[in-house]
């Protein structure tokens, strides 16, 4: 038993390290890719190809002056960014990177936990991400921050529905809520083939859930200065920033797990396939940011409630009927 806890702790520490490093380099990837999309070069001064840029940014944020706005609610002001980051990291407890592998003669599964309510747990924890944003916007005692956090909350709650409906179709087809079982069910056919509508729904809602362009209204600069994190600087700001990037990786990992066959793929080892697919999705996220203009707030709400939700319900109904029909006949 202590040995198992030790392995668990090792895996968790490795995963957190991996995620934080990946997020640091995602900022570089994003800036370089945006540079290419906009026909400029992007940051390339710090180290070869700008590879030390994330390190420089991190040091800069760490040594920055730590300020607190006047009239801020101190406890909540400090708590909110941490809450954002912890909820973002917690999801990775149930995301499978690969099947069991043999390391030093022991069967080690490449996931932390295979809970039989896996996907529900992911959705539940990501629904807690709202707290970091709401509390951060409120505690800073700034009307733009509050407006940003209110917008963001409304957006997150609305698009969670569409996201959930897309997930239900996949769960119906896989017959399990466990993410490991869902990946195993895609051994022959990936669910993106059988559930294209659900995938589109999931992806659109996923972009909205991560507050990314074209749905980055909570931080619309010209309306709200910066949104819920205006009054945050230094490392507290960095925590919000990292949380956002972790959420992008989470959405990509979920899209891969639910629709693109998880670790399945020919020739290459399983975890490598998983990472490659996730990398592909992260790049698409950045590509979308470089391509599409921001939508208006009423357009965002109308799209969520009048298009995505009805479409999701119809898709769940259709999936259920198709699943039951062959057995009935």
């Amino acid at each position, binding site marked *: *038993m202590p040995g198992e806890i030790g392995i668990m702790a090792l895996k968790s520490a490795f995963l957190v390290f991996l995620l934080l490093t990946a997020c640091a380099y995602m900022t570089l990837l994003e800036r370089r890719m945006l540079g290419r999309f906009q026909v400029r070069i992007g940051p390339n001064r710090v180290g070869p190809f700008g590879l030390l840029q994330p390190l420089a940014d991190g040091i800069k944020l760490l040594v920055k002056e730590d300020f607190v706005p*006047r*009239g*801020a*609610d101190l*406890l*909540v002001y400090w*708590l909110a960014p941490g809450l954002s980051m912890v909820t973002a990291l917690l999801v990775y407890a149930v995301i499978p990177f690969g099947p069991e592998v043999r390391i030093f003669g022991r069967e080690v599964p490449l996931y932390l936990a295979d*809970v*039989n*309510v896996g996907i*529900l*747990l992911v*959705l*539940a*924890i990501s*629904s*807690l991400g*709202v*707290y970091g944003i*709401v*509390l951060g916007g*409120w*505690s800073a*005692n*700034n*009307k733009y921050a*509050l*407006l940003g956090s*209110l917008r963001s*909350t409304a957006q997150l*709650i609305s698009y969670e529905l569409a996201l959930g409906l897309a997930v239900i179709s996949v769960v119906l087809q896989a017959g399990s*809520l466990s993410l490991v079982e869902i990946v195993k069910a895609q051994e022959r056919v990936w669910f993106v083939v059988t559930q294209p509508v659900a995938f589109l729904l999931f992806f659109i809602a996923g972009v909205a859930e991560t507050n990314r362009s074209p749905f980055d209204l909570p931080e619309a600069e010209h309306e709200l200065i910066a949104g819920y994190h205006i009054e945050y600087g230094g490392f507290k700001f960095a925590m919000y920033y990292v949380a956002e990037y972790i959420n992008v990786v989470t959405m990509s990992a979920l899209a891969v797990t639910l629709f693109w066959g998880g670790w399945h793929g020919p020739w290459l080892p399983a975890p490598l396939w998983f990472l490659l697919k996730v990398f592909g999705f992260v790049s698409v996220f950045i590509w979308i940011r470089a391509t599409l203009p921001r939508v208006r707030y009423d357009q965002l709400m109308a799209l969520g409630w009048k298009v995505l939700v009805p479409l999701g319900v119809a898709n769940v109904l259709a999936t259920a009927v198709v699943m039951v029909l062959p057995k009935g006949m």
Partner: protein
Amino acid sequence: MEPVLFGILSVAALAGGVGVIASRNPVHSAIALLAVLWSLAVLYFLLLAPFVAVLQIFLYAGAILVLFLFVIMLVHGHPLAHTGEKLVWQRPLAVVLSALLVLFLSYASIHGLTSPRASPGENFGTVQEVGRALFTTYLLPFELASVILLVAIVAAVVLGKPVPRGAETLPRPPREERPLIPAGTREGKA
């Protein structure tokens, strides 16, 4: 392992409960309530009920408490929110109700300690088991609850519908009674 976790979680839940009623700031109360809900959810996990645990986080922490926070943030700092009500008859009532609760709880604990242990079934607490129970044994209450929820949704849509211009039948509230965004209202106190 389990007794240790149980100890930590129950202390956290109790501390959160005290925090809810002890803190002066309603937002702090809401955060304390979040701690209570979270510890309870992990306790459900310990009790082999993962589905209930996840629903606890999903519904209570993820949806209902967010709604609470919304209301607190928009109304807090508004003059009507601080009427200085003294809670005259609520206090004795609270004492009576608390005494009743303690009585119930002690009866339940003594009863639970003396009666033989019930062993959970193979699939106890899984989604499949809960779903089967909802759609067979408890079908009528389940459907009734869904109808009530539907009524509430329809009512919310009707209430939230904007009144068309020139056809205002309801008297508009006077300007100072509408909820204000409290930004800057706390500056005076700081």
